[in-house]
């Protein structure tokens, strides 16, 4: 342990002047603990063969260094003598805790040959203190490098990146908090339980709101003063607000009166921070994440030979292979309709079905994007959805962990109960076992008797047969001889034929061919002769058999009425009856057992009327096997009863196991970090869908949890959502990289930085009619998007799949936009709202799948109110009208889009983010109807938007259907 230092020459110790007196004092206080003098000290020091622990004490008050020697119970202080030839013993003191402490901080193991000298002059010449050796050892000890730390710190570039992320997360949380300073609140006077359809243990309660303000549907609310309760408004019915909480809540826990308040929640920030911390402490599962994100250093993609379960196009197949072979991170760029989801599900399936690969995490920013992928996974993949029941898409609920576990439990309990009824007759079956055994033996005995009676009958028949019998005996002997001959001939013939076949199969050297042919002819002659002999023998045997049959018949006639024969015949007939009766009894027992276990087991079949000897053999084996089999069935019954009890326990006991067995786990980015059961799951691959919409702080949450990742998305569609405050903050930092982290997705930041081997672009779209796709391809994808689908257009309303209803012809006051009512942010346009509402109603009535997309929430609200008058189904309205952001990833037969903006200024507001138009237009499978003030759009002050509008105008004019507002409204009215 302590580094050893050996003094090469002997060392002398000389007592200091006050030593003796001090030792006397100490002896009173610490009897027997300290040596009585230098002589005893030296003897004790030399008694430690390994040496003694030694430290060096720094000089005090301008004095010298001292050397401290530590034994178990005392400490000796030594100074080098003035002449440097020995050490003076200045003191010997008991070992105190402070001495232990000093030793623990570091010491040398000093080994020397100690000599006691009572006076300095007694030190022999040549002796030296060898202080330099001690001092060097001590200096080396002090300079020993600090312990190597187990965790190395990330490099400076990585640290800067992580610091930047932490600052961003802090700022986002702070800004969100500032906005939450005065969250809207809604006092309530009463709480009640409700009967609401629910899939898990989350609580749903109704709050009777006091006052006139109500929270709106889907808003997140909490209970003031109780941070743990967080839920979502499901419905508002009169003064009742139904809230679905994130977890099970005891009714008693809810205050009878209180206030609901809108919440933002800080779980998001916590999870983001946690991901950064995992990277900082190098505990992320994907150890290449920082090199990829910061240094753009990636490991090569490995070749794989996996095949997809369904046919993929060339790009999709390349993406599939890249995803399976990537070691760190890969990107799949998927413009609208190019089959991202199909590709993802094939990747997930291939990972799932390979037993050596770990589970796959399918994740995205929104619940809808996650569920879109899950529903497309094949049935042989075990899928678990983790999330809050209220937020998971209805399609995704079937995979919800809570629901799967509940279904599994219910099914298992139900089937176990049914099956247990089937086991109830096992004891009766067991009672039949001895019966069967006994009857089997009875049948064996009856069979034995039958055989005996038959022999007896035969014997008596022959005895009574006279000359006829002798003739039969003679004929039988002849037949036996003939049968032997026949067997011999058969053997010879077989030999000749096989020898001939072998010879014919050989290829002969031409000079021998003639010889071979001659030999073949000889063999043929011999075979013919042998066959003739065989036929003769067979005919003779046949003749003998006929003659025996005739003789037997004659014998029967002769002996028929002979009394002993008649008696023997009767006895044999009786034995036969008995045997058949015993066999029937066996069969009855077998049938009974079989029917008693039929519900739980299928016993082997026995052909009871077969050869009795064989049947008896089978029965005996069955008798031996059955008790063991019934034991097994009894064990199964017990097991099943216990399984039923086990599975009837709390449903959540199944969660960890179901998660472990899942091939694919679906969760939002935040959700992937919020379940404790997921913490230990070693995901092999994270597939992040809609990655073009996800900022780095969010995408890291799933990425740190999987060994490898594939980001799937399209950076030409919507970028991550950024609140105003955060964007302003980022601009204020003056740091371009911070701004990029805020405004760009990780996908966008990496797409031009990582090697081409790690990026696959999907280019074949199968959603939109060509006329829409071509416009999109030119505007957003450099003309690379190819259309692989032919749509048959519905021309009932529009002549072409791309239509534009132009409001420019209306008087300005009619077509113009106005500010959102009630002082809210945003813009509305009444003329557009009317035509869009009428179109939506038209398609809704015809049962066509439609969606209505507008840029402003205020316009959404206006149209929803208009539609509410004609369409009663509020879910249909909510689910089909929205802003662009809520439709990314979705598709409909008909898409209705209204630009909303119409003003003299040529201001298009945030429509200048052209990617919104890309998302909106590309949702259409059959028909895209655009509504807007084309004149104004062409005058837009934003250059890029103006270019888009011009291209659009040209494209619609050439290949689409342009309609004037007023006349179109008239047509539409006519169709209603």
């Amino acid at each position: 342990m302590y580094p050893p230092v050996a003094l090469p020459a002997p060392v002398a110790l000389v007592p200091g002047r006050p030593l003796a007196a001090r030792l006397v004092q100490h002896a009173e206080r610490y009897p027997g603990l300290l040596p009585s003098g230098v002589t005893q000290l030296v003897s004790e020091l030399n008694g430690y063969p390994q040496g003694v622990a030694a430290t060096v004490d720094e000089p005090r008050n301008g004095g010298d260094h001292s050397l401290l020697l530590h034994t178990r119970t005392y400490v000796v202080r030594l100074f080098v003598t003035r002449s440097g030839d020995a050490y003076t013993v200045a003191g010997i003191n008991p070992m105190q805790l402070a001495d232990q402490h000093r030793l623990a901080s570091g010491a040398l193991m000093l080994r020397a040959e100690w000599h006691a000298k009572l006076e300095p002059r007694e030190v022999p010449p040549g002796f030296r203190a060898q202080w330099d050796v001690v001092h060097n050892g001590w200096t080396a000890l002090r300079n020993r490098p600090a312990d190597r730390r187990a965790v190395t710190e990330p490099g400076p570039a990585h640290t800067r990146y992580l610091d930047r992320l932490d600052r961003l997360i802090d700022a986002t949380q702070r800004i969100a908090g500032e906005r939450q300073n005065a969250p809207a609140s809604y006092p309530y006077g009463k709480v009640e339980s409700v009967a609401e359809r629910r899939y898990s243990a989350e609580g749903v309660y109704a709050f009777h709101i006091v006052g006139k303000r109500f929270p709106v549907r889907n808003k997140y609310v909490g209970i003031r003063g109780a941070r743990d309760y967080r839920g979502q408004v499901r419905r508002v019915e009169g003064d009742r607000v139904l809230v679905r909480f994130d977890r099970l809540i005891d009714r008693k826990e809810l205050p009878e009166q209180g206030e609901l308040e809108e919440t933002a929640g800080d779980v998001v920030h916590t999870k983001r921070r946690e991901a950064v911390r995992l990277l900082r402490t190098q505990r992320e599962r994907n150890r290449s994440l920082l090199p990829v994100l910061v240094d753009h250093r990636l490991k090569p993609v490995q070749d794989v030979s996996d095949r997809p379960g369904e046919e993929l196009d060339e790009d999709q197949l390349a993406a599939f292979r890249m995803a399976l072979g990537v070691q760190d991170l890969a990107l799949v760029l998927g413009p609208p309709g190019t089959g991202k989801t199909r590709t993802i599900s094939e990747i997930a399936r291939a990972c799932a079905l390979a037993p050596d690969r770990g589970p796959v995490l399918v994740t995205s920013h929104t619940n809808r994007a996650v569920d879109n992928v899950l529903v497309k996974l094949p049935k042989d993949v075990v899928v678990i959805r983790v999330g809050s029941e209220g937020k998971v898409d209805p399609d995704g609920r079937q995979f919800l962990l809570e629901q799967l576990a509940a279904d599994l439990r219910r099914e298992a309990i139900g089937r176990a109960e049914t099956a247990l009824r089937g086991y109830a007759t096992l004891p009766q079956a067991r009672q039949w076992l001895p019966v069967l055994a006994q009857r089997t033996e009875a049948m064996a005995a009856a069979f034995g008797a039958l055989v005996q009676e038959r022999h007896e009958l035969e014997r008596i028949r022959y005895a009574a047969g006279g000359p006829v019998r002798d003739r039969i005996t003679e004929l039988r002997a002849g037949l036996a001889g003939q049968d032997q001959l026949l067997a011999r001939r058969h053997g010879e013939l077989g030999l000749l034929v096989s020898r001939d076949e072998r010879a014919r199969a050989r290829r002969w050297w031409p000079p021998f061919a003639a010889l071979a042919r001659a030999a073949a002819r000889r063999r043929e002659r011999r075979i013919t002769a042998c066959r003739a002999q065989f036929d003769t023998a067979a005919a003779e045997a046949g003749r003998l058999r006929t003659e025996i049959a005739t003789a037997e018949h004659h014998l029967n006639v002769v002996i028929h009425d002979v009394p002993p024969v008649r008696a023997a015949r009767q006895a044999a007939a009786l034995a036969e009856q008995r045997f058949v009766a015993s066999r029937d009894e066996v069969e009855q027992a077998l049938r009974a057992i079989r029917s008693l276990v039929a519900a739980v087991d299928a016993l082997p079949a026995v052909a009871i009327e077969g050869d009795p000897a064989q049947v008896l053999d089978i029965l005996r084996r069955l008798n031996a096997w059955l008790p063991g089999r019934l034991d097994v069935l009894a064990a199964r019954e017990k097991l099943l009863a216990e399984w039923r009890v086990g599975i009837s326990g709390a449903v959540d006991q199944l969660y960890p196991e179901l998660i472990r067995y899942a091939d694919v786990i679906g969760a939002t980015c935040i959700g992937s970090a919020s379940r404790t059961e997921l913490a230990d799951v070693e995901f092999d691959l994270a597939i992040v869908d809609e990655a073009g919409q996800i900022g780095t702080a969010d995408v890291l949450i799933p990425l740190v949890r999987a060994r490898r990742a594939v980001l799937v998305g399209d950076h030409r569609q919507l970028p991550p959502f950024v609140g105003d405050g955060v964007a302003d903050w980022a601009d204020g930092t003056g740091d371009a990289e911070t701004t990029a982290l805020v405004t760009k997705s990780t996908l966008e930041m990496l797409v031009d930085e990582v090697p081409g081997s790690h990026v696959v672009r999907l280019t074949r779209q199968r959603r939109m009619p060509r006329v829409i796709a071509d416009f999109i391809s030119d505007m957003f994808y450099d003309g690379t998007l190819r259309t692989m689908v032919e749509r048959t257009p519905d021309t009932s309303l529009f002549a072409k799949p791309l239509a534009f209803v132009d409001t420019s012809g209306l008087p300005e006051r009619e077509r113009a936009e106005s500010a959102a009512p009630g002082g809210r942010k945003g813009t509305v346009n009444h003329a557009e709202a009317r035509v869009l509402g009428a179109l939506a109603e038209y398609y809704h009535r015809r049962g066509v799948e439609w969606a209505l997309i507008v840029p402003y929430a205020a316009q959404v609200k206006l149209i929803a109110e208009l539609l509410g008058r004609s369409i009663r189904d509020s879910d249909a309205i909510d689910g089909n009208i929205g802003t662009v952001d809520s439709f990314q990833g979705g598709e409909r037969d008909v898409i209705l889009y209204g630009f909303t903006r119409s003003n003299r200024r040529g201001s298009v507001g945030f429509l200048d983010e052209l990617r919104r138009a890309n998302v909106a237009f590309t949702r259409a499978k059959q028909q895209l109807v655009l509504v807007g003030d084309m004149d104004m759009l062409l005058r837009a002050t934003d250059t890029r938007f103006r270019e888009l509008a011009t291209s659009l105008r040209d494209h619609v004019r050439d290949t689409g259907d342009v309609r004037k507002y007023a006349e179109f409204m008239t047509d539409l009215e006519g169709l209603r």
Partner: protein
Amino acid sequence: MADRKRVMPYPKERILEDAAFSRELAPTRLLALLLPVWQVEVRATVTDGRPYELIERYIERGIAEGALGTKEELAAFLALDEPIVDRALRFLHAVGHVVEREGRLTLTELGRRSQRDDRYYFVKREDRRKLYFDAFASRPLTRSYYDAGAVTLPPADEVMSLVADSGQPPFQMLCNPGGFRREALRELANHTDRERYNLPVRIEQPESLQEDLVYLPLYVVRAVDRRGAVRYLAYSQAGAEADPEFTELCEKTPGIREVLDIADLAVDPERQESQVTEWCRRRGFEQVEPVRLDEGGWQVTLPAEAFGPKRIPHYRIGSFAVLSTCLLRIRCEDKELRERALLERVGSYVTRRSGVTAADLDGRVDRVARQLELTADVPEVRRMAADAGETKLAGRLDELLAGPVE
């Protein structure tokens, strides 16, 4: 003060009260030590165990007891989806519990052993884990010392900051007596009570990869029992009750015991007296006479006015003040005040804690009464509460006397 709290999760007075009133010893001194501990990274083939989960348990039982030999049979029997059974079997196969022979599933020896012991065993080859051994006897530490949330075991280079921040009494490192005894690893194989020592079910060919010295903070109470024998009770961060292993280590290990004995011998009684006097003077009790007890401790008896808000709190009556070289027991001459203190402490105990049983309460009352030099049991405290008009407390005590309470 805050720093000291950070090292040990409880006030030091609590362990002195434990020694004095639960163990009936006379405490004379409190020392704060840092015990050297080997943190050894061990590589071994390890068999560990965990409780079975539901589905895997019944799949294995189905194979073993129900002679169910295929994925399909098991799925039908348990009414589970085949893919779920398939994935469960993949895990059981990977962990070495199940194999397929001639198309039928059977349990391996490990699977059968797991079934027999009703514990899911798994073998980890090349398992690496860190184990703690005290540096004196190289004996493994018990499970509670692996709870990183409760126990800190700083390495040597971090321990100095702990020492610097540790307040009074200062934490002193004990020196490591020698290297790690490697045989201790081999001894693990035969160690009994594995659960208590945080050891896996089976450990084969253990090999030390790295040994680091870390330090475990301990409070050691020197106390004298009724026969005059000196005891050294060791309290760690794992709890405010003396740790039996470390107590034994302090009392029986020569290198520690001697140093502790010397620490006591080295104390100058005059210095103790001046510390005690100074303690009294600072609180304005120059006139009271501290008394040195035969066992080595000190006590001072104060009037009722000494206690109360902004003075010495009632809960410290009968307890100890920790001085650097000795302990001072703080007594109160006023019986009425002591009775009030008893009611306060019992009241606080029964209202702040949930799940208190009648037996807990008996023990608590007994201990607090002894600290306050009163003779009282629960019925007596209940009577005192009623007399004092503490109806709520009396009611609560009635409930507890009647039976266990949720």
